[in-house]
């Protein structure tokens, strides 16, 4: 027997060339109804006989709980938060998304690298650095951007969850109080997502319409991507 071999250089990034599923991403601001629409799309797809996996970064087994705990504390730096999210995202991608795509599922992912990069950039991360950090993520087949404006977000939030510390960017102290900081922070996020929308050809859907009308639009966007049965 010869000498044992040194580890082979393995590719950490699996090329998506073997995948035959469909990756659909829903992007948009906090509390804009992303999960409602993912839920509706899932039911519609399953009724038509497509296998569906829905997932989000928050579900990461490796980092989800840790991230939640870290956000509950009083000290989480911008860089640390950005990398914690990148870990959670990579975990979901490798654990849920890639296997499901290989098995031919339609994967509905609540948010993708875009909003994670936007929130990291607002916290001072360099754009080129972020792009390279997230270079392991495959390009989705379709990115739907549920678009709104800050006024609509405010009226939504004020009547539901109230103003959350992180969703108001209070770690950055962009205003004197939660409300002022929320308006400034969400405004910056929207500006960043809008810029990405034209660059990466998101399908922009006005989130202000009634739920059924938005759901119909989403179905018409997803339908052409599906395997015909």
């Amino acid at each position, binding site marked *: 027997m010869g000498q044992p071999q*040194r*580890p082979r250089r393995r590719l950490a990034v699996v090329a998506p060339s073997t995948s035959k599923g469909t990756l659909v991403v829903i992007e948009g601001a906090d509390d804009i109804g992303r999960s409602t629409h993912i839920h509706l799309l899932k039911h519609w797809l399953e009724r038509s006989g497509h296998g569906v996996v829905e997932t989000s970064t928050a579900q990461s087994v490796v980092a989800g709980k840790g991230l939640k705990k870290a956000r509950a504390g009083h000290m989480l730096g911008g860089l*640390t938060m950005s990398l914690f999210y990148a870990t959670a995202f*990579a975990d979901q991608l490798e654990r849920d998304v890639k296997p499901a795509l290989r098995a031919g599922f339609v994967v509905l992912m609540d948010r993708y690298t875009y909003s994670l990069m936007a929130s990291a950039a607002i916290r001072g991360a360099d754009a080129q*650095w972020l792009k*390279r*950090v997230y270079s392991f993520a495959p390009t989705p087949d379709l990115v739907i951007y549920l678009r709104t404006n800050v006024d609509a977000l405010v009226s939504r939030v004020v009547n539901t969850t109230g103003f959350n510390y992180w969703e108001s960017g209070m770690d950055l102290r962009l205003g004197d109080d939660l409300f002022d900081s929320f308006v400034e922070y969400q405004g910056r996020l929207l500006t960043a997502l809008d810029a990405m929308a034209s660059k990466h050809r998101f399908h922009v859907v006005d989130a202000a319409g009634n739920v059924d009308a938005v759901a119909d639009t989403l179905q018409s966007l997803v339908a052409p991507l599906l395997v015909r049965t």
Partner: protein
Amino acid sequence: MKAYGEHHFPGRLFVVEGIDGSGKSTQLALLEQWLAAEGYGTFFSEWNSSPLVQHATRSAKKKRLLTPTTFSLIHATDFADRTERDITPRLKAGGVVLADRYAYTGFARDVARGVGRAWVRNLYRFAVKPTVAFYFRVPVKKALARIVGGRDAISYYEAGMDLHLSTDLEESFCLFQGAVIDEYERMVDEFGLVAIDASASIEAQQVQMRDVVASALAGVRKSGHPEWDSLSALAGGSPS
């Protein structure tokens, strides 16, 4: 975001690197003692010890949930927290920081796991460049023999068992750490690591380390021990 090499802080950052069993932690502990005796306050930062992140890492390792990419990212997250919370503020304040393992550990291990060399270097680009980074060079068999407790003390990931190089723990350790050593060797020139022959006596290595550190300490404020100050004040202030 300032990149590696772009920070200019009044403090000093001394780092030890090398595979498990290279003796680097022993050397750093001896250095810490000496610095204290010389009147320098130091802060010690250990790899994988962020209060925000280490629990998630430990649990994921225990359940063997990590891929090369998530392994790399979660360690970078831990490092980012310690950089933001501990290392940068102290260096800005002129303190002396000692780190047991640094970004180079990420470069060595993650590349040995198959992660791209350029990708992981970019990932840690926010790292503050150390004043001096020591690399303790040791043959893998010698390191293995030094690991106290033998094979029970070797962890699954440290042996690279996730790469399925061998079903035997010790053999896998040698193969994986051999690849880690290859990465360290290429970093000696790339990052100007100060290589120390870790096969030499503990005393000889420490002398070498202290020489290098001493010449890098010019201009650093000594903090002294508060207890000592008050004791000497008492001794000097009271009439005999």
